[in-house]
């Protein structure tokens, strides 16, 4: 019985690992293939099954004039837009979440919960509904096809996530901790910065992770709100497609585009395994 349990346990672990890792390995091998190796039947092992070449990767850094699709600039654009928008969203979102969690707001029938819901409702709307207003708004302030415009839009999209996660988190931090800080001589700002914030790092990390993921993977708004001046990675990757689907360069671009998220995941995972996320607040 015990043996069966152990067997099943490892079976599922291995199964799941293969399920998760296999697509990456496949993309990795494919990225080194050329037309012939891709279309010549199923092959796995380089040098044995097929002759690897770097064409798929070279395309990504070659300028369009030389027949490539240069993704270096869009890559850094994407990094810049995602990080900036996430950072601003976390700062603003954390502050508003703290206010919503600790202070009572009332404007007619609108109360704290309604304001929190208003933030979340921004994410409930299908993006297509927002696309036209965003387009018109950005064009009216001349920020279409610009990094600043994209950052503004992403803040609108990401801040609700930050608010949502942080309100929930602050609600779980006992109010008495703030009160004790006040009694111990902190003014409200110091209480927030010295006591509440250091105890909210796990929440900040989770919120930051979500912001970065959602910002990084967005295709829709990047596609609609930019044309030629500024391009983000997801849009550029689509531009790789031509009459012949270039599986090798698509695979390579998939790998480089997923890399930042994997790095983020590893950092957060290390943090999680220290147990800091769960035990910070009793």
């Amino acid at each position, binding site marked *: 019985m015990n043996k069966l349990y152990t067997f099943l346990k490892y079976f599922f672990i291995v199964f799941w690992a293969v399920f998760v890792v296999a697509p990456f390995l496949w993309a990795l091998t494919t990225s080194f293939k050329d037309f012939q190796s891709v279309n010549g039947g199923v092959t796995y092992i380089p040098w044995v099954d097929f002759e690897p070449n770097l064409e798929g990767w070279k395309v990504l850094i070659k300028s369009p004039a030389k027949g490539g699709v240069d993704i270096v600039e869009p890559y850094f654009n994407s990094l810049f837009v995602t990080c900036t928008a996430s950072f601003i969203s976390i700062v603003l979102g954390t502050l508003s979440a703290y206010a919503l969690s600790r202070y009572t707001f009332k404007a007619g029938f609108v109360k704290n919960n309604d304001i929190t819901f208003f933030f979340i409702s921004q994410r409930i709307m299908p993006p297509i509904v927002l696309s036209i207003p965003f387009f018109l708004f950005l064009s009216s302030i001349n920020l279409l096809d610009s990094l600043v415009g994209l950052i503004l839009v992403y803040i609108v999209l990401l801040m609700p996530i930050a608010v949502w996660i942080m309100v929930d988190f602050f609600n779980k931090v*006992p109010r*008495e*901790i703030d*009160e*004790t*800080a*006040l*009694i*111990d*001589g*902190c*003014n409200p700002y*110091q209480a927030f910065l010295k*006591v509440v914030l*250091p*105890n909210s790092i796990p929440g900040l990390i989770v919120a930051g992770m979500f912001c970065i993921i959602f910002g990084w993977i967005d295709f829709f708004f990047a596609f609609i709100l930019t044309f030629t001046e500024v391009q983000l990675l997801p849009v550029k990757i689509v531009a790789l497609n031509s009459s012949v689907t270039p599986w090798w360069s698509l695979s390579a671009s998939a790998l480089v585009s997923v890399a930042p998220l994997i790095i983020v995941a590893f950092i957060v995972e290390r943090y999680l395994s220290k147990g800091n996320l769960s*035990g*910070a*607040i*009793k």
Partner: protein
Amino acid sequence: MDLVANNLSYKPDDQYHLKDVSFNFKEGNLYTILGRTLSGKTTLLKTIAGLLTPDSGEIEFDGKNFLKIPVWKRNVAMVYQQFINYPHLNVFENIAFPLKQRKIDQSIINEKVMDALKSVGLLGYENRKIQELSGGQQQRVSLARSLVKNAKILLLDEPLVNLDYKLREQLRDEFKNLFSKGLADETILIYSTTDPRETMELNGEVIVLDEGKVLQVGPAKEIFENPNSLKVAEISNDPPMNIIEAKISDNQIRFEGIDVEAPQHLNKLTEDGLKIGLRSSDIELNENGHEFEVELAEISGSETLLHLKRGDTKIIVSIEEVLNFKIHDKVKINFKIDRAYAFYADGKLASSPFGSLNG
């Protein structure tokens, strides 16, 4: 430096949390706020600390309007019933926090923190994380943090209520030691509790609070001996004082077919609707006594609490022994009637064995 409050009222919803609370606390004294849960004790302490602003009324400290001073400048200290510490700091940093906030020299901070650790018996724990400590130790840390500030007003909000029995006894003794050593002669110590025993042991000036109102103020002994009303008698006894509806005539107290000879301090009362109050410890088992039926018998520590019934009258008897009873057993009890209180129908004290309030 006195802490004086006039007619404090606080009504955040449709119920008063504080109603016309006035007091005059003098420095160097211990005040106990006794009341059941939700009686407004925490609200009162938070109002004194400045965490809540009353709807009306005034608080003056040292002749200054206290309500105009924000919390962080009031120089108060507070210990909560939950063990509140800063989870991201270790024991030393927790206790040093209020001092660092005042930008005191590091060497003085070290000295003071060590002193505070010593006085709460946590020397050697300074590098521990808060989460590694037991509940009692956590509460000691927050006590140390409130002691280290030399605050003029020290507020303790049911500091022992979340601890288990043994720790509670131990910590209560330490509290008494700390308090009697005299924190500082200028400190006003305000201690809130639901436990009458704690009140008696601390033996300070007692403020009995119920539904936000002050019911009685006086030394612990006075509250115990002469509760001015039924409510106070209930609040200041654990288990609550037994209340028996009875009639007094011809020198006899009559209820449920029982006649007991009225003691001297009760035999002149003839009003209708009198209620006789008798502590559960003033009733004893006796072969020749009156028969009651057991509704429930609970053993707590070395005590047995018997919930008894006869007709419509229900009483609780505490016996300093562990005894086994079954439900519906018949027991015979005797009343130490010379220890009985009498209350008028409106709840006011009519007569007490220690001499009534009205002489």
